[in-house]
């Protein structure tokens, strides 16, 4: 599915602000894997997702999607394989355009943009049905500007847009971090429904250890640009927060002292 081999990334090379964001990352995802990635600030989680998405190039190593080497493909070309939801609810949608226009642009992900009409009546029906699965009443507001929606509604819409064309890989970059706890739970519920319901392969970055443990079939912990451990199968099912902390201590030889992770 997705394979990263010996991937490196350094920011601001050769300056005092040099930061090794990713060091020799090797990772292989199997079809249907729902992986949660946990780690503190600066662990390299978001960098990892951005490298997979092609936001910036790798300094070394290769990225494969289904045996296709995408290392040198530009961001907009990789979009063919990827569905993405961002931390910032403003990023994933166009606020000045209405809900159905946003969906129509997402529906054509990976396809050439022609001079055909931008949205067809059949599509509207599809969008109506898909929106109603979100239970937010958005199906009755399809011609409302997205800018009028709340952050949570926008994230739910972005999630729908990312999966409207089934992606080979869904990238969720702390997509609930900017939401209040209740809304975050709703968006996570939808995430889980969509990923498991459509048998998607997904990578979800989070700060929240409970979320990381509850969701998915595999958990990866990162720190200092490296993957510390990778737990899947039965071990993942019985995993508790204390186990994560213990594993972190064993791997790093120090206590986990990240407030944002611990207090969540």
């Amino acid at each position, binding site marked *: 599915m997705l394979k990263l081999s010996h991937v490196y990334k350094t920011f601001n090379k050769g300056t005092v602000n040099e930061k090794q964001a990713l060091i020799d990352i090797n990772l292989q995802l199997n079809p249907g894997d729902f992986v949660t990635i946990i780690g503190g600030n600066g662990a390299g989680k978001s960098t990892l997702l951005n490298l997979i998405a092609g936001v910036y190039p790798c300094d070394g190593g290769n990225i494969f999607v289904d045996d296709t080497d995408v290392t040198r493909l530009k961001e*907009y070309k990789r979009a*063919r394989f990827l569905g993405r939801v961002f931390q910032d609810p403003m990023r994933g949608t166009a606020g000045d355009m209405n809900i159905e226009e946003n969906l129509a642009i*997402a529906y054509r992900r990976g396809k050439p943009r022609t001079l055909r009409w931008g949205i067809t009546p059949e599509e509207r029906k599809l969008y109506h049905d898909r929106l109603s699965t979100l239970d937010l009443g958005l199906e009755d507001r399809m011609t409302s500007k997205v800018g009028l929606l709340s952050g949570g509604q926008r994230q739910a819409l972005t999630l729908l847009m990312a999966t409207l064309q089934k992606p080979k890989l869904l990238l969720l970059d702390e997509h609930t971090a900017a939401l209040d706890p209740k809304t975050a739970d709703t968006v996570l519920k939808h995430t889980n429904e969509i990923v498991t319901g459509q048998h998607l392969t997904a990578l979800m970055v989070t700060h929240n250890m409970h979320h990381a443990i509850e969701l998915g079939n595999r958990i990866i912990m990162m720190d200092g640009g490296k993957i510390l451990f990778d737990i899947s199968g039965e071990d993942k099912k019985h995993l508790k927060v204390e186990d994560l902390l213990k594993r972190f201590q064993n791997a790093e030889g120090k206590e986990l002292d990240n407030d944002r992770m611990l207090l969540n």
Partner: protein
Amino acid sequence: MNIANFLVTMHGAVAQGVIWSIMTLGVYITFRILDFADLTVDGSFATGAAVSAMLVGNHNADPFLSLLAAFGAGMVCGFATGFLTTKMKIPGILSGILTMTALYSINIRIMGNQAMIPLNGTKTVDIVIRKAIPGISAKNSQILLGGVIVGIIIAFLYWFFGTELGSSIRATGNNPYMVRSLGVNTDTTTMIALAISNGLVALSGGIFAQVQGSSTVDIGIGTIVIGLASVIIGEVVLGKHAGFLPRLLCMVLGSIIYRAIISLVLFLGLRSTDMKLITAIIIAIALFFPTMKKSMQQWGSRRQAAIAVADSQAENAFDGSDDSDKESDGKE
């Protein structure tokens, strides 16, 4: 000075406004749809005028076909700015300035190293129309010509920005990150929008040169400012929540109102060289308008609150008691 004179002046303003509205529609595409302040237009307007005047004046080309050539030349100018900003990553405003500056030299070359091409006695578009419709005045022939072309352009833009490609251009101006994440090359959409925009600007320049009867090197100076003023005036007239079609139509209205204001000011006795100052003032006022509206509302609600407070205090004083307002209200 009388009413008849004034009406003649306004008639001229409408004729000018309709022709310049083609340029305004171009500026609207970059400034509002693409969210890109494109200064190329000062150059591309003159390029359109130069190409059209050269073809008509010196090569006896068909005046209408020369306008198509002007449109094409304008598209090339837009592509140049688009290339500078997307592929060479030069900031948008600077890219526009670079193209505009380069076009000054290019335009003089197009004009055969002359500062001016006179079109006296040549077969220009409005002369063709006046021959076809005997008795039509020069101004009415301009309004007819401009009106038909603007109608076609608005129909085209309305269709184009509803297509898949047009939608992705609109989204590019709104949220380029999202557009890239959904598989659209924003470099391409940016260049297409700039090309169409400058094509329209050059077309407007071509018509203007023919109607005016000459093309000069400095014909395009201040075009961007006039375009922005017209866009902003059009939007003030329209209000915020209108569909795309009324929005485009209001660009035409904005251009006409702008010309009318300028004509009025000239009519009242100011010099034509004062126009740039007046234009700048119009834009400043129009841009200030939303802020002013907000602070007026704020002022209004503060004042109401102050009156309410003063009223309740006055009531208390009347009662001569320290009791709460509710009680005294109840008594009354």
